[in-house]
């Protein structure tokens, strides 16, 4: 039963990923991407990491897709939708890379014995060994994540905060309208419309 659910879910997710890659309209591609993110959240639920599923829905579907949508809306007026895919040699190259990487990965997964033997996930019985800690972590993941972030992963947590601050400031600085850029753009392209590029 759960295996059939997994197969149906994975097939749907892979179809959505293919739709993201092949859709001519970028807005359609973004909507396919939302469905793919949701399938990933369902996979996290199947892996008993419900906190990760919540984070996936909040950050990817809530934030990342909105940013991508804004990017699409702010850049897609001039170019038509036909420029979103490439010419035939590149298409063949991409398909070849897909086939090669997928074959190598599947063969590698099949060849490694300790992975193919792991068909049953460890249970978490209420005993005193190390699996008990994980059982407790699965049952109450959100407090465990908070505790781990403040103890074991505190340096990585601070670095992530620094990275997010730097990315926030950097994105604002990059996307800010700078008057010297407009002058340069006019010098580079004399035919461009000053009413569009001017501030």
């Amino acid at each position, binding site marked *: 039963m759960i295996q059939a659910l997994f197969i149906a879910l994975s097939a749907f997710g892979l179809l959505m990923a293919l739709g993201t*890659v092949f859709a001519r309209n970028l807005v359609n591609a973004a909507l396919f991407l939302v469905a793919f993110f949701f399938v990933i959240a369902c996979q996290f639920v199947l892996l008993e990491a419900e906190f990760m599923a919540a984070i996936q829905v909040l950050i990817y579907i809530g934030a990342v897709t909105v940013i991508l949508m804004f990017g699409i809306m702010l850049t897609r007026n001039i170019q038509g939708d036909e420029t979103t895919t490439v010419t035939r040699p590149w298409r063949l190259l991409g398909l070849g890379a897909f086939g090669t990487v997928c074959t190598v990965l599947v063969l590698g997964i099949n060849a490694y014995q300790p992975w193919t033997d792991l*068909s049953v996930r460890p249970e978490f019985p209420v005993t005193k060994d190390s699996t008990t800690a994980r059982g407790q972590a699965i049952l109450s993941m959100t407090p465990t994540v908070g505790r781990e972030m403040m103890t074991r992963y505190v340096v990585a947590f601070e670095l992530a905060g620094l990275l997010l601050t730097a990315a926030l400031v950097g994105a604002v600085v990059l996307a800010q309208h700078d008057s010297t850029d407009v002058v340069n753009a006019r010098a580079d392209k004399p035919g461009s419309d000053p009413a569009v590029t001017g501030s």
Partner: protein
Amino acid sequence: MSQQIPLTWFLYFAAASFSIGLMGVLMRRNAIGVLMAIEIMLNAANVNFVAFWRYGPTPASEGPISGVMMALFVVTVAAAEVAVGVGLILLCYRRWRAADVDELDTLSG
């Protein structure tokens, strides 16, 4: 109790998703499309992290949720990457009126 899902099924799904994302990076001309394909690849890696955490043994030195923490930090870095990436694409679009990666060839001389 029905039969459980083997670990390799999650690995197959992640491998296929990663390959599709790689194909998207190679085949998209629009930079936003390339960013979307990169997101697919990062998500495939996250599935692998969580699957290995759930199925594998847990040494006591690693803490109870090592794979989930790794996936969380990957999500953090991916969010920052998308914000900066979209900012860069908007900047390039404003300068050269193009968001296609094959038209941004100023540095190639």
